[in-house]
């Protein structure tokens, strides 16, 4: 037998690889594919088989290298064949792939949404979280101590009028319970359980007998913040609310206080934030009334604190440009799907 130089064997392999590549990427139907298979991969006299015969003529010391090269090309050609077969099976023709109408709809994948009020609550809770406030929750069916007395709203206070609250008579309770009219109730519960320092936000549903209209609903959501630490002043309150407003609205937002009246804070203020050159109402706030601190067993001469409350519906309506807050409770997915939180939560 004549010796076949390794170079010649390699060259033959490369030629085979190139030709197979040309043919197999161009074949367009089963007949051509079968022909190509016989030509290149035929068991008896296919080109691969032919070249393999040449392997025997390579010098003994070159055999391992030649064998490796042969195997690599053989595998490559088999892959080319498999690709061609797959392409033909899929009905595509080479060089003339049928273009799709890219404007046709994609396969639908529907994502849901969290409710715009939830988006707003999450955002508020996240911002307050950066400021060290922890979210707390409490019961919606409350007793009169937590909803009124501990909040310095005595029995004769008009806020306790039966027409202004949703009272619930429960046989097991000594006095009627009620659907809480504010989430400050949770603050009382936390203060009763824990010692200062405290930074909490209580949030959830609250209930007041308002006739439903564009700006009122008998059920709505509140977020209330409470901070109790020695040495707390209104300057801390203003600074925290400014940080909050800046984070919520973006940019450096100023806030201002207007005197107001709430039974459980003294001094009490309405808080405005400056938005697009206008002062808009943000919520109520104030220093926790000493009577409230005493009611939960704190010493008002030792600790002080502030509280603030935001109406979630109101800020959501403003943030999203919703004119009628009743829309938040209509639960039509065409409405709900419009609210993308844009990664802000």
């Amino acid at each position, binding site marked *: 037998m004549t010796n076949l130089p390794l170079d010649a064997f390699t060259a033959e392999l490369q030629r085979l690889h190139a030709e197979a590549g040309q043919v197999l990427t161009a074949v367009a139907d089963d007949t051509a594919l079968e022909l190509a298979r016989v030509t290149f991969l035929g068991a008896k006299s296919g080109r691969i088989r032919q070249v393999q015969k040449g392997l025997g003529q390579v010098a003994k010391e070159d055999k391992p290298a030649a064998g490796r090269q042969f195997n690599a090309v053989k595998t490559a050609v088999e892959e080319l064949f498999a690709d061609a077969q797959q392409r033909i099976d899929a009905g595509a023709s080479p060089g003339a792939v049928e273009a799709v109408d890219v404007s046709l709809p994609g396969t639908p994948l529907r*994502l*849901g*949404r*969290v*409710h715009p009020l*939830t988006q707003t609550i999450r955002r508020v*809770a996240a911002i307050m*979280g950066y*400021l060290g406030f922890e979210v*707390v*929750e409490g*019961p*919606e*069916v409350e*007793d009169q101590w937590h909803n009124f007395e501990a909040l310095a709203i005595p029995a*004769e206070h*008009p806020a306790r*009028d*039966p027409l202004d609250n*949703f009272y*619930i*008579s*429960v046989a*097991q309770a000594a006095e009627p319970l*009620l*659907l809480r009219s504010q989430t400050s109730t949770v603050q009382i519960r936390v203060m009763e359980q824990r010692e200062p320092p405290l*930074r909490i936000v209580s949030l959830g*549903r609250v209930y007041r*007998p308002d006739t439903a209209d564009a700006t009122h609903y*008998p*059920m709505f959501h509140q977020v209330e913040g409470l901070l109790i630490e020695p040495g707390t*002043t*209104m*300057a*801390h309150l*203003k*600074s925290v609310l*400014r940080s909050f407003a800046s984070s919520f609205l973006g940019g450096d937002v*100023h806030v*201002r*206080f*207007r*005197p*107001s*009246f709430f039974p459980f804070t*003294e*001094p*009490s*203020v*309405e808080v405005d934030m400056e938005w697009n050159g206008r002062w808009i109402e943000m919520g109520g706030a104030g*220093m926790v009334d*000493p009577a409230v601190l005493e009611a939960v067993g704190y010493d008002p001469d030792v600790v*002080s604190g502030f509280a603030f409350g935001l109406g979630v519906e109101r800020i959501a309506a403003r943030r999203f440009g919703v004119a009628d807050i009743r829309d*938040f*409770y209509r*639960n*039509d*997915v*065409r409405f*709900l799907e419009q609210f993308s939180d844009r990664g802000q939560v």
Partner: protein
Amino acid sequence: MIVSLDWLGEYVDLPPVAEMTERLLLAGLNHESTEAAGSDTAVDLEVTSNRPDCLGHIGIAREVAVLFDRPLRMPAVELPPVSGDAPVRVTIEAGDICPFYSARVIRGVAVGPSPDWLVRRLAAVGVASVNNVVDITNYVMLECGQPLHAFDLSRLAGNQIVVRRAVAEEPFVAINHKQYALTDEMSVIADAERPVALAGVMGGAETEITEATADVLLESAQFAPLPVRAAARGLVLGSPSSYRFERGPDPAAVEWASRRAAALIVELAGGRLDGPVAEAGQLASRPAEIILRSNRVETVLGVAVAWDRQREILRSLGFVEREAMADASRWAAPTWRRDCWREIDLVEEVARIEGYDCVPENVPLAAQPVQRSPRERTVRMVADVCVAAGFCEAMTRSVVAESFEAFDSPWGGVAPLVCRPPLVRGADHLRRTLIPSLLEARVGSLAAGAPHGDLFEIAHGYIIRPEDAQDGGSPVEEPLLLTLVTGGDFFCGKGLATAVLARLGLQERPTIESGATMGPAGHGVCFQPFVSPLLAPGRAAEIVLQRSGFPTCRIGVVGEISPSLGQCLNADEHTVVVELRIDCLEFIVDEEPARVALSSFPAIQRDINLVVDEAVSWGDIVAAVESTRCRELEAIRLGEIWRDADRLGQGKKSVVVSVRLRSPETTLSAEQANALVAAMVEACTSRVGATLRA
């Protein structure tokens, strides 16, 4: 409180109106509007309920005077001297409702139109002119905040005034000429025979001042806030008078207003005073004395206000410094500021007048670490699954119609929790499940044309706890529920429930009995047949939580809606609901699940064709397979179930169980796999009577 600028200018020199309203706004009187009223200007100011002193022009003028450092001019009141006895007798029988009552008699008045200035001023603040005497009572009320009433004395029986409780059902015709039925909780001003006014709320038609009136009885009294409020609300008869009495006018104004009005009547309607004022009772006044420490304002505000400035502010507001001490002083509050009785109230007065703009807005807060609670994290996780599954979050009312609650709840609570008044008309039952509410939302939304109604909600239910579970706490339990509603069959719902539970790390277990195979996590859930009026019979399951060391408990239900619920809400019966008690699942977010290293060895897939009795459930078969405790058993899947009475026999079904076997240490051989499968078949044979299909 609507203020006439022309009128207000009588008591203080006014700054430009915009400047004035801006300053008042920042001192606690919200500016609602400024509107032209003829040649005058009407300014509407919102007065908070703690400031009845600002329900009169003088009170507003005092604020302006303090804020702009201008003198306040009080109108001089001079009455001609009188002698003799009072011509009427006043008796108070209901002292809790009326602490003090005074009556002044003016005889020989000429009732007629008011002078132009009076008509104009009243018109500017939205009060129509009636006649000179009535106008004067309104005018003085709007001046000093003390409501007054004038009676035609000739129509009062027995020359006497009795303040007493009404007799139940006692009829009364108010000056609006409507008849009201009184209750014995209301208080009236009566003459010797009958009620002539509803105390603090409104006068009566029979004794009103008319053109024919010659003798006037002028009432100036103090009424307790709550009874006035109750009467006004009970009869839906609120008035400017009741509005003020509910808030508590200045006690000192009772006497001043009476003299002021009497002087004006004499001046504008003629007539003469008859005798001294007739009085009964004691004026309730609580003159507070308050010590203010000089450093207190800074402690509260975070910014210092000079001590002299603090004292100047308080003095200008009418506080009297009774005693000056080293670093404090003792103050007497003015009679019209009954809201001020503690040190903190004085701090607020100083802050309010000095202006909150002086409070810094850049005080840093020490950093504090925060963790999301298990509840927050649980809610986030389950909501994320729902959103990923294409569901939109809904919010429905917590209080529903009784008809919704009639379908019972998976969460117990037989006695209904009913609120008064209803949340909205017809809805007064606190819900125990969200299912009907969410279903209603779906139906409504689809009917309105929404492209789909796949909704979820996370909210509380409300349940009365069993007596023995109350522990002295609230009798009401509020499970936190996640509810989903969509179109589809039971399995569609179960798939959703399983996905949510899997996200939390809770896998389905075949049966409750197989607690031993719960795995390293020590918990799992099991679906069992469930009967509820909410759900279709035979097409519903309860989801039972098994947790090492705890009794099993129901944490969810899933099922197709029952025909009756569908009918009630007009819902397509091809609707499925899931409700989970996520408050019972919070524990799991604090558990870090054990990780399983992936095996690098290949798996072997085998199908086992079993024939079992119809009554054998898939769960029974899974439990049987798992009972082999086969370490290499990686997954069990349902291949298919089919029935063919001819080939399998009556009452039999074929179940193809697909198992995947894999060893962490080695490549399983076919022989090894065969042995493992054989053990599983044997377990199925012995436990559920399965045979291999030929």
